[in-house]
C-alpha cells in the first residue's frame, strides 16, 4: 500500500476524529491540545470519540508483560493514603480537613503555648469541632467549643484516656501552616484553654488535632506522638 492509496486527509468530517485520536495518544502540540480541550468541553460527541480511542488503544496493553511491583510499594502507598505507624501529622489529619493541606512540611514552628486555665467560666461557642478518633485513637470521644469573643477553646472529653505516662496535646492546623500547640488537656474531664489573640482570625475552617505526648507536652514544638483525633472547626 503506497501513500497514494491512503484516504485523503481532508474532508472535514475526518478532522475532529483524527484530532481525537491524536489527543488520546498525547500527540497534539500544546496549543492544539488546549484548543481541542476547549472544543471537547462543549462537545459530548468529541468526548465520546476520545473515550472510544482510549478504549481501543487500551487493548494494545494486552501485549505488555505484567510485572509485579516491589512489595514495599503497596506498604508505601497504604502509608501515604491511610497512615502508617509513624506517618506525618499531615497524613494523619488530611481526611479530617476539608481544605487541602499541603504535603510539604514547613520547617518553622510558631510554638505559641496556650495558657492552661482551670476556671469553669462558661464558654459561648461560635465555632465547634467534632474531633473524630483516628485509628490510633479508638474509643476517644472529644468535642471542641470555641468562643472567639472570649478567645478560648473548651475541650469536652466524654470518653478515652491517653496511654499510660502520656498526655494529650491540642494542636491548631490552619491552612498549610505547621501545627501550633494550643496546650495540654487536663488529666480528666473538660479543659478550657485561652487562645492567643493573633490566632483567632485563622480559626474558621482550621483543623484541631489531638496527639499524645510526653508529660509536659511535645519537647520539639511539633507533634511527636500519634494523632488520636482531629476535626475541622465550623460555625455552630
Amino acid at each position, binding site marked *: *500500500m*503506497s*501513500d497514494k492509496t*491512503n*484516504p485523503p*486527509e481532508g474532508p472535514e468530517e*475526518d478532522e475532529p*476524529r*483524527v484530532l481525537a*485520536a*491524536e489527543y488520546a*495518544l*498525547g*500527540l497534539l*502540540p500544546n496549543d492544539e491540545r488546549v484548543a481541542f480541550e476547549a472544543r471537547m468541553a462543549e462537545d459530548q460527541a468529541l*468526548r*465520546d470519540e476520545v*473515550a472510544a480511542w*482510549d*478504549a*481501543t*488503544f*487500551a*487493548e*494494545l*496493553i*494486552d*501485549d*505488555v*508483560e*505484567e*510485572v*509485579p*511491583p*516491589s512489595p514495599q*510499594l*503497596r506498604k*508505601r*502507598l*497504604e502509608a*501515604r*493514603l*491511610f497512615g502508617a505507624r509513624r506517618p506525618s501529622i499531615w497524613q494523619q489529619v488530611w481526611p479530617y480537613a476539608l481544605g487541602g493541606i499541603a504535603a510539604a512540611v514547613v520547617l518553622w514552628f510558631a510554638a505559641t503555648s496556650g495558657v492552661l486555665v482551670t476556671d469553669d467560666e462558661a464558654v459561648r461557642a461560635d465555632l465547634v469541632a467534632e474531633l473524630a478518633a483516628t485509628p490510633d485513637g479508638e474509643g476517644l470521644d472529644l468535642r471542641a467549643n470555641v468562643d472567639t469573643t472570649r478567645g478560648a477553646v473548651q475541650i469536652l472529653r466524654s470518653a478515652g484516656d491517653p496511654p499510660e505516662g502520656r498526655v494529650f496535646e491540642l494542636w491548631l492546623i490552619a491552612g498549610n501552616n505547621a501545627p501550633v500547640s494550643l496546650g495540654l488537656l487536663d488529666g480528666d474531664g473538660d479543659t478550657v484553654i485561652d487562645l492567643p489573640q493573633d490566632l483567632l482570625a485563622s480559626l474558621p475552617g482550621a483543623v484541631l488535632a489531638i496527639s499524645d505526648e510526653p508529660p509536659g507536652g511535645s519537647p520539639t514544638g511539633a507533634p511527636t506522638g500519634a494523632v488520636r483525633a482531629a476535626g475541622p472547626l465550623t460555625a455552630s
Partner: protein
Amino acid sequence: MTPQEEVERLIARVAMGDRAAFTKLYDRTSAKLFGVCLRVLNDRAEAEEVLQEVFVTVWNKADTYRVNGYSPMTWLITITRNRAVDRRRALKRPPEPIDTADLLPDGKPGPEASAVAASDARRITQCLDELPRARAHLVRRAYLDGDSYADLAEATGVNLNTIRTWLRRSLIALRECLSR
C-alpha cells in the same frame, strides 16, 4: 463474575472508601499497570513513583470514571499510560531509535505476524495489521512507548511534518477499519 465485573465492583467499593476493596484492586491490577509504567519509562524507580500516583488518583477519584463512559480497565490503563507518558516527557528521555528498514513503505505483515493476527480477536490489532507494517509500528510506539511526534522524527530521522502526515493517515485508516 468476569474479571472486568470484579474490577468494576471493587472500584465501586473504593469509591465508598472501602480500604479492603482498594487493597484487593491493587493486588488484581498493579502488575498489569506496573508493566505499562515500565514499558513507557524503562526505569523501576520512576515506574513505581508513577504507579503510586495512579493509585492515589484511583482512591480519590474512583467515583468519577463512569461519567466519561470508560470501562473500569480502560480507565485504569488510560490514567496509568498517560501519567507514565507525562513523566517520561518531564524526564526528557531520548527515544529508542527505530530501524529505518522497518519504515519501508511497502512493509507487509510477515507470515508470523499474520498467523498471530489470525488468532487475535482484538479489533485494534486486526486493523493495525491492515496498515503497512512500519505505519502500524509508529502507532504502537506512540501509544505503548509514549513517543511524541518529535520523538518519532528523531528516532527515524524522518522530517517531523512527514511523520505527522503518516500518523494522521494511519489514524484515519484505523478509524475507518474500526467502524466497519
